[in-house]
């Protein structure tokens, strides 16, 4: 198999997922729920915020977290330096889980079904493979891997081994954004013609955060790529078509060290999809001291949808929905709305094209080698 962005684009459109609204799922009576428990191990317990997806999963009554560990001694030392010597042990205790100093001990436990792999993207491919080899499903934060090709390969590897490679992308679980997607899928607004989306993080530059070459090497980019990953995944999800062309402006406006490292913090990305949809996205992080700046305007031949501040407009916790979707995927093989590694690969590939476009000031035609698969 030739590894390339083009392979990724082709395969990412393949998963045939069962499309069911999470909102309707939550109306299922308790006795009808699958009575199984998802047993979870965590590799990578650094200092993170709400993207610590083991905490998300832990809110679900069908989840039991059994074990936690760091993925290497460097990350263990880093966490201890920041939060104290017993931080990791305390964290394990809070989750009622056992702490292991070597992640391989977590992998060797036969009673663990899924690993929440919270490492840097540059380490995700190798560690992800080890998890799959150990017979575990894998859940990743975004970006799933540093390169989209690796996401694709990991997805293929998991498939061969009968395991799941899942990626937590919360925008799919905001009720208003699910409504939007359901409206589109049900044909309520006819054929989608154009989309304008804004997904801009605020309160930057983040306090205490300093970008370094190590950071760039591990993550592959700055805030436009990071926030953009969420938004592009959502766009792909609702448009449900292959991208054919990408153009982007990526700029560095807010972080001095980003400039020195030539990574971006703000950008515009324009995607043309095969089904004719034009999606224009403005993303990144700015300094405004407020909740994120978000909007979504969708034009269709039979209607139009305008959403403002979609992150503050929900009646239930999207992360709880996200957690339950993971449980459903892992236990009942119903992918529901959770992103697959293939989809993450597609998102990563679009962002790679976007970066290339921004660096070359040229539109990137997304060519797919259909004969590869």
């Amino acid at each position: 198999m030739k590894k390339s962005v083009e392979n990724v684009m082709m395969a990412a459109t393949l998963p045939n997922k069962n499309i069911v609204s999470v909102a309707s799922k939550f109306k299922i009576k308790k006795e009808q729920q699958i009575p199984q428990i998802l047993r979870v191990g965590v590799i990578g317990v650094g200092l993170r915020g709400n993207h610590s997806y083991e905490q998300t999963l832990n809110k679900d009554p069908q989840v039991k977290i059994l074990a936690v560990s760091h993925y290497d001694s460097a990350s263990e030392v880093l966490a201890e330096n920041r939060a104290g010597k017993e931080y990791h042990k305390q964290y394990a205790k809070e989750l009622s889980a056992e702490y292991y100093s070597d992640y391989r001990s977590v992998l060797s436990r036969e009673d663990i079904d899924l690993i929440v792999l919270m490492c840097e993207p540059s380490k995700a491919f190798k560690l992800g493979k080890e998890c799959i080899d150990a017979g575990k499903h894998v859940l990743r934060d975004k970006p799933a891997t540093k390169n989209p090709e690796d996401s694709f390969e990991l997805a293929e590897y998991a498939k061969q081994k009968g395991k799941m490679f899942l990626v937590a992308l919360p925008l799919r679980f905001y009720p208003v954004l699910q409504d939007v997607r359901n409206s589109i899928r049900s044909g309520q607004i006819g054929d989608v013609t154009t989309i304008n989306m804004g997904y801009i993080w605020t309160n930057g530059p983040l306090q205490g955060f300093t970008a370094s070459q190590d950071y760039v090497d591990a993550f592959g980019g700055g805030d436009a790529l990071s926030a953009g990953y969420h938004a592009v995944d959502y766009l792909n999800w609702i448009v449900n078509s292959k991208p054919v062309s990408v153009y982007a402006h990526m700029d560095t406006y807010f972080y001095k060290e980003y400039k020195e490292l030539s990574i971006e913090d703000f950008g515009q990305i324009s995607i043309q999809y095969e089904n004719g949809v034009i999606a224009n996205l403005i993303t990144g992080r700015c300094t405004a001291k407020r909740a994120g700046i978000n909007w979504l305007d969708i034009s269709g031949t039979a209607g139009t949808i305008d959403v403002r501040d979609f992150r503050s407009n929900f009646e239930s916790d999207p992360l709880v929905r996200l957690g339950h979707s993971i449980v459903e995927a892992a236990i009942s093989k119903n992918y529901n709305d959770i992103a697959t590694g293939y989809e993450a690969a597609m998102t990563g590939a679009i962002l790679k094209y976007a970066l290339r476009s921004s660096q070359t000031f040229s539109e990137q035609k997304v060519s797919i080698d259909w004969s590869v698969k």
Partner: protein
Amino acid sequence: MSLCSKPLRLAVIGAGRLNIATGSHLPAIKKLSSVKLVALCDIREDGVKEQALQYGVPYYTDYEEVLENKEIDAVDICTPDHVHCEQIIKAAKYGKHVFCEKPFAISMQEAAAIKDAIKANNVTFMSGHHMRFTTMCRNIREAITEGTIGNVVFGKVIYKGAFFPYEKNSLYYKKASGGQFVHNGPHYVDKLFYLMGQTKAETTFSRTKSVYADKNDSMETANFTSVMLKFPNGATGYVEQNLTILNPRGYPTKEDILIVGTKGVIQWNTLDNAPVVKYLNGKVFISDPRPMMDVSDDPYASELNHFAECVFKGKSPETDIELSYNVLDVCLRAIA
């Protein structure tokens, strides 16, 4: 609004039917002491006669006769887009100052010829971009120039509105108007230029799309255009004109503005009843909701008053030939 002992003697050309002249310019001129309406002109005699009676001024059916009248200082051209070039150049040759509704030309060849004529005849030229004269725009620009959001690094202007069909002989077809983004796009491009404090931009990328219920409704050009811009100071911009909303038919016009600075952002949109909202240093400042246009604050009156002021003082208008040329350049490159 008196600027001089004598008002600017202005003739309006293209005032024989319901259009921007009769609907907006003539009522605006009535409010100004700096401008005196002295004549109207249109090839439709019945229409212009009716307007002339209403405003108590003489009328003409041949605009060259207006230009020959030495009692007229300036002309306000509100004719169809494709005749602007010829009329502006002739007016300049007659030494008339020219105010022309946007787009002042429909090709860069026309724009260059107009530019030459304006310079050669040393007359004042101003293109009608009334949106920058709205209270909303002035408020936002004022906040920016006061430095409240730091250096502006990004701006977007989005205009989304209902699709509307075109009559068979409509003057909005490509031949007469250059197409939708040439006819209407200058509004939004100029607005972004103004808010960003810029007078030119590089068009780095654009996408267009045509969405019509019926091919016969088509204006022969795209009714969706999005364009990315790069300004000389390194800031970037995004303009979108989306007139594809087929359903519902009565979809209200929606405008959305975002200006991002190094210290904060300013957001404004028509869905929120038009307040100016500033997010600065952890605090939220929201102005009283204001309508975009009202009797006391008519952007058309403001722009025509600005034109008169520039003529009297020998100043270059905000939307002079250079800026108008650059705005048109963005629009034409976007649809190229």
